[in-house]
């Protein structure tokens, strides 16, 4: 193609902070707590999510410290059980599920669609309050004695056998679930009703497609876990025999209900992350995402197949062999769309013009770690090998590769990528590239040994373990220390950059999305005038033309001022 597709990054030294933006339009704590602005709510979420992430992360640190030695040397087994339970509950329900959708999705979906706000701004604020109420209850639970059922609340352990705060944890998750349902509902309505003129479905950024798929999962899946929690509460308090076999209940029923949500939930967690990666890889290779339709439909395929694989968590629990056969086959089908995405991202690089800023480094990290996480998922989806590998550290390693290696990498990639849009200031590039590399190395050191531990048979959720597993556990803990540094760094320099970072300008990455065609940080209304979408997503030639037109306009406006 012609040379007019060269897009150079703009000179940021001349960029100025806009006088008016969503950040300074109103002042005072109430202007934040009562806001209907999707961007402010996204910031509220970002701050609270970070808080929960560091609580969950500290609990992970305690787990790794305890596992340094084969005996229970740091804490009693009961304490250990409470800590890994709270780590799971907080990380899954209060960090991973809302992470990308509630922060980046909330901030960006209206802007990407060319809308002023989400369709239901008050519902959006309500979801944040529900999230905070649920989160506070979870923290209260932890402070008032904790809970030790594991985040999976397995019955009849949770209904009859533990004396800890199962109910308040259940209520916390129940409330947070409604926060998630409202967010999903809001996104679906917004994507259907609020698209700017010309923004057809196949001009939507892939970030929006991914969020649409995840929203459907949130709306359809979350009520089921809510029902399961209510049933657990009823059995625990008034003894209705839903799961208790001595009262005619079925203990496997809980597993079906729980995983009917909790398996799709992993796609709720990862799909928005995949959306981030599509945007980032396209922008830093200056190229349209390879196979746009394939990537878009693979999100939809994941959302559909994702609902029919839940029983692969139950292969050894006493399913009929034929049920296991069916669910194993369906699991193979859900693995394919993820493979499609990975290869399309790799081919987006082909004949691109690639630069390696921090978001791109995190995206590369995502591709490597998610590939490992996804492929090891196939080990577990295959019914035969699942017998040996399930309920061991292999599973722990697998889902941390997907959730931490995949999702968290995508989240950090997105935070670095859109941070300048949200705050108007750049992060320090060299330091953050270092942090990305440290995170990647620390992550592999932490979780790779756990695959081997799992192969060797070390069970998960063990406070004490046979001494032959110690070496690999020490490796893992050492890696976790590095990983901790990798996560602390961004918090420090991103806070620093709020005040001292370079001014970003409207479109520091020369990205094509509508969110970049307005000022950073944006106005409360997002756009001065409703944008009209007259080109496809990721159209870098259109962007170049826009830039040329702007330059000409500037030149034209400069001439009279001289004269």
């Amino acid at each position: 193609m012609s040379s007019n597709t060269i897009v150079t990054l703009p000179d940021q030294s001349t960029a100025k902070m806009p006088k008016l933006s969503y950040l300074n339009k109103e002042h005072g704590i109430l202007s934040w707590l009562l806001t209907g602005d999707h961007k402010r709510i996204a910031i509220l979420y970002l701050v609270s999510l970070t808080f929960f992430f560091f609580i969950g992360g500290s609990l992970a640190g305690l787990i790794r410290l305890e596992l340094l030695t084969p005996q229970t040397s740091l804490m009693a087994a009961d304490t250990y059980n409470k800590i890994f339970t709270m780590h799971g509950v907080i990380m899954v329900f209060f960090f991973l599920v809302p992470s990308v959708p509630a922060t980046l999705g909330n901030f960006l979906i209206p802007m990407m669609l060319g809308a002023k706000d989400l369709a239901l701004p008050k519902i959006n604020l309500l979801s944040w309050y529900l999230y905070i109420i649920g989160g506070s209850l979870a923290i209260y639970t932890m402070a008032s004695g904790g809970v030790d059922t594991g985040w999976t609340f397995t019955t009849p352990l949770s209904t009859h056998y533990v004396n800890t705060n199962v109910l308040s944890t259940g209520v916390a998750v129940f409330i947070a679930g409604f926060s998630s349902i409202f967010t999903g509902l809001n996104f679906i309505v917004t994507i259907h009703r609020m698209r700017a003129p010309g923004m057809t479905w196949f001009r939507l950024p892939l970030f929006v497609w991914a969020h649409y798929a995840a929203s459907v999962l949130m709306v359809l899946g979350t009520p089921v876990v809510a029902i399961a929690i209510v049933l657990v509460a009823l059995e625990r308090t008034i003894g209705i025999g839903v799961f208790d076999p001595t009262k005619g209940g079925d203990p496997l029923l809980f597993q079906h209900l729980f995983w009917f949500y909790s398996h799709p939930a992993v796609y709720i967690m990862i799909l928005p992350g995949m959306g981030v990666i599509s945007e980032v890889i396209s922008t830093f290779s200056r190229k349209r995402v390879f196979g746009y339709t394939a990537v878009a439909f693979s999100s939809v395929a994941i959302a559909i197949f994702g609902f029919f694989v839940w029983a692969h968590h139950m292969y050894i629990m006493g399913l009929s062999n034929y049920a296991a056969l069916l669910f194993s086959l369906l699991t193979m089908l859900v693995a394919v769309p993820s493979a499609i995405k990975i290869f399309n991202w790799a081919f987006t690089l082909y004949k691109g013009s690639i630069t390696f800023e921090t978001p791109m480094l995190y995206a590369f990290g995502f591709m490597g770690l998610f590939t490992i996480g996804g492929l090891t998922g196939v080990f577990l989806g295959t019914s035969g090998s699942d017998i040996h590998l399930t309920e061991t550290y292999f599973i722990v390693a697998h889902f941390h590769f997907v959730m931490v290696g995949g999702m968290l990498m995508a989240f950090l990639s997105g935070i670095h990528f859109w941070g300048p849009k949200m705050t108007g200031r750049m992060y320090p590039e060299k330091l953050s590239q270092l942090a990305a590399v440290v995170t990647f190395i620390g992550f592999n050191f932490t979780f790779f040994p756990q695959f081997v531990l799992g192969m060797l048979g070390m069970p998960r959720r063990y406070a004490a373990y046979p001494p032959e597993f110690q070496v690999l556990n020490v490796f893992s803990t050492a890696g976790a220390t590095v990983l901790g540094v990798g996560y602390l760094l961004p918090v420090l320099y991103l806070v620093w950059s709020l005040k001292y970072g370079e001014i970003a300008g409207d479109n520091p990455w020369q990205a094509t999305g509508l969110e970049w065609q307005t000022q950073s940080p944006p106005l409360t209304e997002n756009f001065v005038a409703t944008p009209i979408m007259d080109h496809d997503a990721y159209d870098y030639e259109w962007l170049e033309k826009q830039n040329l037109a702007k330059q000409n306009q500037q030149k034209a406006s400069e001439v009279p001022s001289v004269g």
Partner: protein
Amino acid sequence: MKFLSPVLWQFLVKWMTHSALFPPEASKMASDMDALIIFMTLVSLFGLVVVGILVATFSVLYSKKRHPVAEQIEGSTLLEATWTIIPLGLFLVMFVWGAVIYFRAFTPPPNALNIYVVGKQWMWKAEHPTGQHEINSLHVPTGRAVQLTLISQDVFHSFSIPAFRVKREAIPGRYNTVWFEPTVPGTYHLFCTQYCGTAHSAMIGEVVVLTPDDYKKWLAESTSGMSLAQNGERLFASLSCAACHNDKPDARGPSLANVYGAKLNLANGRTVIADDAYLREAILNPSQHNIEGYAPIMPTYQGQVSEEGVISLIEYIKNLDSNYRINQTLTTSDLLPESHGKTAPAAQGVKQ
């Protein structure tokens, strides 16, 4: 590779299994399981290397310095088809291979030596039909198919023997089965792998694999003097089961002779096979399993008989090939008091 070069494949399998990536292989299934896992590992490595090479090569070739102008490419249906079909094909190979192993692991052969395992917070109790009781250990012979019939008396537990590549959940309210054929004598880990509360990580033990001769010795040394069926017989007497389940023409309950494995017509019109699961349910929850032609008068024994008690009753019923024994139990139930001095786990079970 298995088909291209069987020798190389064997070598690779041996090398992989003897490096510290796998636990020892001590059952017939272990090497098959490891072959599958190695195959999946190789495919995964291949996939990872392909993605890695693509990303690395493109990053070098098309870095901004070398390739300042991006070329816009829409996509390629051929490539999309390629990376849909090849992964799907590989996944389907894994699916079939895995399903073969899965069906084998969870379909015990009919002649297997059956051992009952009861999980409870936080111990494993193994009941051998010949009357040996073990806690947190399991003795099995080499060269013989061993079936475990697992049940939990409280929460979910999971019986895991990594060296056998076998794991099965012990859940309350129903029997699960798994089988294996030990090959190498030795002592191996036994873990509970399903989180079951405070002392989950202490619910461990050992599996001792013995040669057939040693196993015979062990059986003789550790016998409690009474087989499981004999325990069942006592329990049968002490619960006065024979008051109804006897051979008399006016018996209020159906005869139990030869009932195990038979096809039964229930009062609600269903037909069932009287297997372990059915017998257990019929004892604990009889009103749902009333036999055609009999009045629904049997009381529930839920909460009165422990899981071990139910197991010994089932063993007793299994071994009844005539009602001779029942009648004998009826007439000799005075046998009970004198036996109280001996260990009578079934009677203890009733108390629990």
